[in-house]
């Protein structure tokens, strides 16, 4: 057996049996890599692909309309529509609800439009203030001062049978202010 395996150097340009087999091996591994890469990529980027069809947003109940006095701004909390078993308290989200009059509302994200810190409402001066970099907003959410380049993010809302619901489910960020995409523009804009 061993005497028969003595290699004969291949002629210039021709393909030896071993060389061919190595190339086939590389090709076969490439095929295996592609077969594996597709599911891995799908797994890795699933958090993006799901969001593309707005799969994250849904209508969330905030509470009875009557719990929000007219002319006032109150904090409300809701549970994020998508919950994973390991999320703990992080799925509980806060927002600011301003009841203008009757069924007319404005629901603001808690996140500052600058870098996402939690803004606080000061009823006496009618301002939202951010503790991080000092952004301030008026009661209608429009920018008052500081580093933010826009007003507060707003959730689309609807009132049905005396219950206030908002469309939520995604962290609003300056580059992706999901919350305000479908809502009416604030009166000042």
């Amino acid at each position, binding site marked *: 057996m061993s005497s028969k395996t003595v290699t004969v150097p291949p002629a210039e340009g021709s393909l030896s049996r071993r060389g061919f087999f190595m190339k086939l091996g590389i090709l076969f591994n490439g095929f295996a890599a592609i077969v594996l890469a597709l599911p891995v990529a799908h797994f890795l*980027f699933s*958090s*993006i692909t799901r*969001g593309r069809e707005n799969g*994250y947003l849904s209508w969330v109940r905030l509470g009875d309309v009557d719990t929000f006095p007219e002319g006032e701004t109150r*904090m409300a*909390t809701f549970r*994020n529509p*998508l919950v*994973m*078993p*390991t*999320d*703990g*308290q*992080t*799925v*509980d*989200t*806060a927002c600011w609800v301003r009841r203008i009059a009757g069924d007319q509302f404005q629901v603001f994200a*808690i*996140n500052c439009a*600058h*870098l*996402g*810190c*939690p*803004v*606080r409402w*000061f009823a*006496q*001066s*009618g*301002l939202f*203030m*951010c*503790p*991080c*970099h*000092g952004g*301030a907003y*008026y*009661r209608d959410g429009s920018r*008052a*001062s*500081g*580093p*933010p*380049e826009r007003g507060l993010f707003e959730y689309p809302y609807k009132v049905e049978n005396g219950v206030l619901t908002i469309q939520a*489910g*995604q*962290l609003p*960020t*300056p*580059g*992706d202010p999901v919350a305000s995409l479908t809502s009416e523009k604030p009166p000042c804009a």
Partner: protein
Amino acid sequence: MRVINMRVIKKIGEWFDHRLQLAAPIREAAEHPVPRNTASWFYVFGSAALTVFLLQLVTGILLALIYVPSAGEAWSSLQALNHQVALGWFIRAMHGWGSNFMVAIVLIHMVQVFLFGAHKFPRELTWVIGVFLLLMTLGMAFTGQVLRFDQDAYWGLGIGASIASRVPIIGPFVVKLMLGGPIIAGATLSRFFALHVFVIPGLLIAFVALHVLMVLKLGINEWPMPGRIVRRATYEAEYHALTKKDGVPFVPYAIGKDMFFAAFIILTVAACAFYFGPFGPTGQPDPTITQTAPKPDYFFLWLYALLSLLPPSLETPFLLIVPPLVIIGLILLPFLSGEGEKSWKRRPIAVVTVLLIAITLGTFTRMAQFTPWSPHMNAWSGDPIPERYIHGTTALERQGALVFQVKQCRNCHSIGDTGGQRGPALDSVAVRLTQDQLIRQVIQGGGNMPAYGNNLSPAETTALVAFLETLHPAGQNPARDAARDLVLSNEQRPAANVRDSTVGPR
């Protein structure tokens, strides 16, 4: 007996080395000749960084025995480490302080290498890999802060997401990839755990090995002499001649100071851990608790300050353009100045650049410890106006002081050194602005001040401005509009304007 023991050990050693064949290359590496004057205290920071990295590996593994990387339980597992597990607090403190020391030592090492010209030919690639090691060290610092899953970590992730979202076109996708979902939640912590514990440490180990290998292969940078010029054509021969003429084996001649400093650093980290204790965790990562003012860890404070002080329109371009430019600049540095003088004594621009960067980062870091740009959220209810400012004032002015307090003006304006510093201190505002200017500023805002027109009744505005007009140092008259005084002199003056200007505070 002793001799037999030694002989047995030697036999076992030989048995292993016959199979491993590692003794010869290890001895060669240990005894490779280095220039005599590199056995200096200035050359200990590289090995110190390696020492702290190993310390981080060990303490990190120890923490992983208890820590639970789940958004629902991470915070309570840290509490258990702090309070329930024997010396858990100490291991946490060692890891936290080790992290601070590692960033600091890597930066010092980098400055020393740059000032001693060690990045020049033929050590360009060693420098480039060093730049990657710095970035990975900062990456470890940030991801480590996230694993301390408390309020600061939660809102810090929000800041990271807000910055990432500003990248044109792909920003929103980057955010979802970073968070592992639509919000900061369980998946976010899990992937930062994977980064902090598997991905970045794996890369770090590989790159550290390459970095050290290149130091061994290319030799330790000789002590730079002013006038000794690096040329690509001749340097390696010169270095070889130097190590031959005036070289010593690395072990045992040069390693002594490294070993001493390594032990010193470990003990210093342990002492800091023992006296100052572990970092946090602060409040629970509950997004509905908004009574918080999140702040990054020490080595990102300069960025925190920068994000507050940049003009809003410059912020996004700055965030997206400057960091890549800095990284590219650092990588290109050894290729742009690969030859020439090594000594810092003949490289004034290099020295000035290092000083400028150090002073800038230091100043921003210092400012971020005071955060003068943040409103004091509780000043309006917690810092009363000092008594001397309302002593001997009229009822209207006192009412104004009340308006000043209740309308949260104090959150941004200090009086008598208490209150926020977002806006100017108002102790002598009456000297700067006339009555009309005060009214205009309060109603319309401007500069960096919100307009209060919708939130003050005419009566409240009148009272507030009357109070503000009393704010001037004794002996310094409040600003007056002469033309207006003339008009008013023909009418009956309002009571608030006839007060003797010397009856002010102080």
